């Protein structure tokens, strides 16, 4: 930078109330216009990959909760499916459908938070309050299924620790009855709202070509016009049994990202409803004695169950040598797990492909030439989750 210009350096963050997390951006400003930006990340880096190398497989699950904490069940289930892929375990249809229900509920909460926060950042707090009540309903479903709300640690390698209770099913049904009305109301507030449209259309755009080059996935890539969705291209967990639409945008701007997420919410509701209506009979877990903890009543009364319990907890279990890459469609895009096993009790190497980490690189390019208030909106519409960014 030469001395004869009038650029100002502005530190946006690390703890700025408008950025919903710990993100530092050093902006070079010409008045209100952004000339350049540089991000600093790593403020909540917790070395998950190193910790995972010292933990047995089932103990890695709580680490995955803490990546994208807006949709923890997707992370948990994605990890379980990675281990199942390494072990060659085939799950039952009931497990698959239960997983779809929970993953789609998680996607709903993730998108609700993201879209309502776009509203908040453009000055419309009302919609945020409306949809947060619905997020609360989903958290109550999580609570009923797994016992936890935010860091769910949901499911087990091979299925679930228990079946859906009657109350859980009742809660899911009641949620499905409520949510479409709330979405209608929410959309009425924002989608054709002149102020919202003026604030979001053409803000923080990215072309399809650049988005692909930057490794965008998920709603952000689809808003730019590329219909890539892991649920469709590489169906996992019986997603191929269902019929759903992949919405795409055209401009790749904030408004398109908002609309794509909004449409995906509707598709997720459809998926949850279909999966719940067609929930097959069967077992809620498959037989993976080396990894699936036996029920407690058997541990206390049967010798064999006690032995298995000990073997699993102490990690004295055979694991095939090999490497797998498994990815699921997370709230933000392709959430990948690259797992290398050397046959030991812990992963030899585990790498998380975290969509936020990869697409947040494009942020300076997207906000360059815009104004500061647009930069805030662009960040919230990209849905950068600090936990996922820093792992």
């Amino acid at each position, binding site marked *: 930078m030469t001395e004869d210009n009038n650029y100002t350096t502005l530190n946006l963050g690390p703890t700025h109330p408008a950025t919903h997390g710990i993100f530092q951006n050093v902006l070079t400003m010409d008045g209100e216009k952004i000339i350049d930006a540089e991000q600093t*990340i*790593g403020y909540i*880096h917790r*070395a998950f*990959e*190193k*910790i995972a*190398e*010292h933990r047995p497989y089932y103990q890695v699950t709580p680490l995955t909760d803490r990546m994208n904490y807006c949709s923890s069940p997707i992370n948990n289930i994605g990890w379980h499916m990675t281990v199942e*892929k390494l072990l060659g375990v085939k799950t039952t249809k009931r497990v698959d459908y239960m997983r779809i229900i929970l993953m789609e509920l998680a996607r709903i909460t993730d998108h609700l938070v993201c879209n309502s926060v776009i509203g908040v950042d453009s000055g419309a707090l009302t919609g945020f309050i409306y949809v947060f009540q619905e997020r609360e309903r989903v958290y109550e479903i999580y609570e009923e299924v797994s016992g936890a709300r935010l860091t769910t640690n949901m499911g087990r390698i091979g299925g679930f620790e228990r079946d859906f209770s009657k109350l859980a099913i009742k809660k899911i049904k009641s949620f499905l009855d409520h949510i479409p009305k709330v979405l209608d109301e929410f959309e009425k507030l924002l989608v054709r709202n002149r102020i919202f449209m003026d604030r979001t259309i053409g803000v923080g755009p990215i072309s399809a070509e*650049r988005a*692909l*080059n*930057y*490794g965008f996935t998920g709603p952000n890539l689809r808003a730019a016009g*590329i219909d*890539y969705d892991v649920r469709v*291209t*590489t169906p996992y967990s019986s997603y191929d049994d269902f019929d759903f639409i992949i919405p795409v945008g055209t401009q790749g701007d904030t408004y398109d990202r908002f609309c794509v997420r909004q449409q995906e919410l509707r598709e997720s509701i459809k998926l949850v409803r279909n999966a719940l209506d067609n929930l097959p009979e069967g077992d809620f877990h498959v037989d993976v004695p080396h990894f699936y903890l036996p029920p407690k009543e058997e541990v206390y009364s049967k010798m064999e169950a006690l032995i298995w319990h000990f073997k699993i907890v102490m990690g004295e279990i055979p694991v095939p040598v*090999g*490497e*797998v*890459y*498994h*990815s699921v469609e997370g709230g933000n895009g*392709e959430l*990948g797990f*690259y797992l*290398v096993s050397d046959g030991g009790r812990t992963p030899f*190497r585990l*790498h998380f*492909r975290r969509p936020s*980490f*990869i697409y*947040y*690189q*494009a942020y300076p390019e997207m906000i360059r030439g815009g104004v500061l208030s647009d930069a805030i909106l662009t960040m919230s519409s990209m849905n950068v989750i600090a936990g996922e960014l*820093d*792992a």
Partner: protein
Amino acid sequence: MDNALIIDRLYKTFGQDILKMDSGADILTVTVSHPVIHEVIRLLKEDDVLGFTMLTDLCGIHYPDRGLPLGVVYHLHNLVENVRIRIKTFVTKAEPSISTVTDLFSAANWMERETYDFYGILFTGHPNLKRILNVEYMDFFPLRKEYPLEDPTREDKDNRFFGR
């Protein structure tokens, strides 16, 4: 597009530099020697037939017992035909430098910085190769196997009380 075609294309151009080919894994896995890695990735991306236009993932790995202990693993994806490929390359600890692929994929920028941060692999030609998740004054590469999980300089924990 099947594996045979990819293998054929790669062999035709790189021959000797293809060290290992494994189509038995979940994804076709190819190990190449490190001087050609940039050209391999370029061919995979820019070839009309192959068209691996998406860099899904790039990460490091450390096998302390091997002659070439430090590795870089690339996952590429052809979105049109939905084919994935895994490319690996290995370097020595004394000279851990390979060519960057940031000129081909903007996505590689932070992924390579992360790999440098944790494994100390130097990507030559990278526009801004500095630490990304760890603090800048850190003087070791924490995901290498020789570094223990816990801070070895800690004095407040007595190993006798933890069964060690």
